[in-house]
């Protein structure tokens, strides 16, 4: 229990109000011993990045089901870059079509977890990426 805590920011960018998945993932990460900061609905990219800075998180998990990921995810990655942040692992989940994934990977999203994902896979992924 002691030792380096993995801190994760779970964020819902944009107007999408479906938070069942985000809350289930947040709880699963908490049960896996991580510190999870959940900031609720309607987060702007600016809010997400500023929160990530102040909370010095290791991971940002973005949950979005509205199709607005094509605009919002790259915007968030852009802001992280502007702030010279290179060591935060950014992952995403929700309704994200497979064909959009390569573009998202290109801008630096480390992993996309679509419907049917087992939370243990997310936990494993985070533990591997955060060293």
């Amino acid at each position: 229990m002691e030792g380096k805590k993995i801190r994760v920011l779970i964020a819902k960018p944009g107007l999408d109000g479906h938070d069942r998945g985000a809350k289930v993932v947040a709880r699963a990460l908490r049960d896996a011993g991580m510190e999870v900061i959940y900031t609720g609905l309607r987060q702007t990219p600016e809010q997400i990045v500023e929160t990530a800075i102040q909370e010095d998180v290791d991971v940002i998990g973005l949950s979005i089901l509205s199709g607005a990921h094509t605009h919002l995810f790259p915007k968030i990655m852009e802001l992280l870059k502007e702030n010279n942040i290179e060591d935060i692992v950014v992952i995403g989940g929700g309704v994200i079509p497979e064909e959009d994934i390569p573009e998202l990977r290109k801008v630096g999203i480390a992993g996309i977890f679509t419907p049917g994902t087992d939370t243990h896979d997310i936990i494993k992924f985070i533990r591997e990426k955060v060293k």
Partner: protein
Amino acid sequence: MLDKEEMKKIKQLKKEWENNVVQKTLERFPERKNKLVTGSGKEVERLYTPVNLEGSDYNKELNFPGQYPYTRGVQPTMYRGRFWTMRQYAGFGTAEESNKRYKYLLDQGQTGLSVAFDLPTQIGYDSDHTMSLGEVGKVGVAIDSLKDMEMLFNGIPLDKVSTSMTINAPATVLLAMYIAVAEKQGISPDKLKGTIQNDILKEYIARGTYIFPPAPSMRLITNIFEFCFKEMPLWNTISISGYHIREAGATAVQEVAFTLADGIAYVDAAIKIGLKVDDFAPRLSFFFNAHNDLLEEVAKFRAARRLWAKIMKERFGVKNEKSLMLRFHTQTAGCTLTAQQADNNIARVTIQALAAVLGGTQSLHTNSRDEALALPAEDSVRIALRTQQVLAYESGVTETVDPLAGSYYVETLTNEIEKQALEYIERIDKLGGVTQAIEKGFIQQEIQNSAYQYQKDIEEGKRIVVGVNKFKINEGSPKGLLKVNPEVGRKQIEELKKLKEERDNYKVKENLKLLEKAAKTDANLMPLILDCVKSYATLGEICDVLRSVFGEYKESVKL
């Protein structure tokens, strides 16, 4: 019902059957699990017999369709007279594109319209707002002004179709737009048939597209009740929703409990501002989920009807029998559909739709197979519609009313769900009502706990999802998914600019000012919103006025 002696005999014979016949079988092969449960986790017995219903009273608990307590249905002839309305929720991109989809669906035999608005519209933002970037037209149609609404219903006679609009926080504005479009078609409001969802409480609980805080939101909702009572007698003023609560992870019992609790809150709010319950209650409607467990869902619908009737009679003392009837729309459960082997979803939707029909729904939306991947492609939504048509025309379940009544299992489940839902309602009462319960996070926590348990059950293999944690295959990428034109946002912004140049901006400003003034009093805002809408004030402009007076809601999250 059977008399005491017969019951005793059956009890005894059942015991003997279990000790001898069943025991022998169990020794050869045990049952699949130690405990078998319904979709909601309720334990299911091996066998149900008349003994489970000992002491039941047909006339009191079931009675006849169209008669209190309406367990068997709200209409005497149900589908023998008319099938449920086949009403597919649809909308995406621009008004023009959605208009095309609506015409297609009506052509294919759908019998009512159901409008899906995009998130900016649902949250009262115009397409050019910063929060709208990337969201315009993605989950529904973008409506910024009356101009878009006119396009949406272009060529669709509003006196011939009934329209359901899934809009909540800015419901007054969209309803006003609908009325204005009808007027332009020469149709008076009293001829209009349809439903406006207008259910803000479930937004706070489970759906998230709120704008204003609870008190002013209730005011807007009761404004609609009052306005429609006078001007639109054929219009359903609210669709008190359990669908989204279930989608957020609630169990069947919680779905009924929280939905009816919301209903109680709305009735209370309307009475508080001076409306007579029998004036508005007949036009309240409901919206439920049709989940996987066929028989539990059927029982749930019947329990909801009976419980609501009792609540209206005993708690609110209604005199008009129409006030007792729970009429509802159903949507099959989106959360149960998978991205993996998506065609299997057609089978899931069929079972869920069957549950809704056996449960006596008044109207039905069936999800498309690509639900977990995108908005429905044309061929996918056609299959979903055909599913309803097959059920209606080929399955035979429509030929008699409430066919599952009398099933020992279904009646037992109906009784249990009613009982447990009532217990929840009493707990909420103790907390001070739904608004208090939401503020304290009680309802949200119950739902979150169920959602978490559901996920754990899947991950531990206790709950099987075919294609996801069993019977997996290696799949290629899905093909033929609907893609929303990425230019929609840009187009809407251009149109908005044009609109603002072409309209009478002085008139708009005046109307908005009048609205602001009235919002600070307790006047009914519908007439003023109608004026704003007709002068082509945008949705965002109108909602910003209301925001300035009412403030914005701050989420209450209890993790």
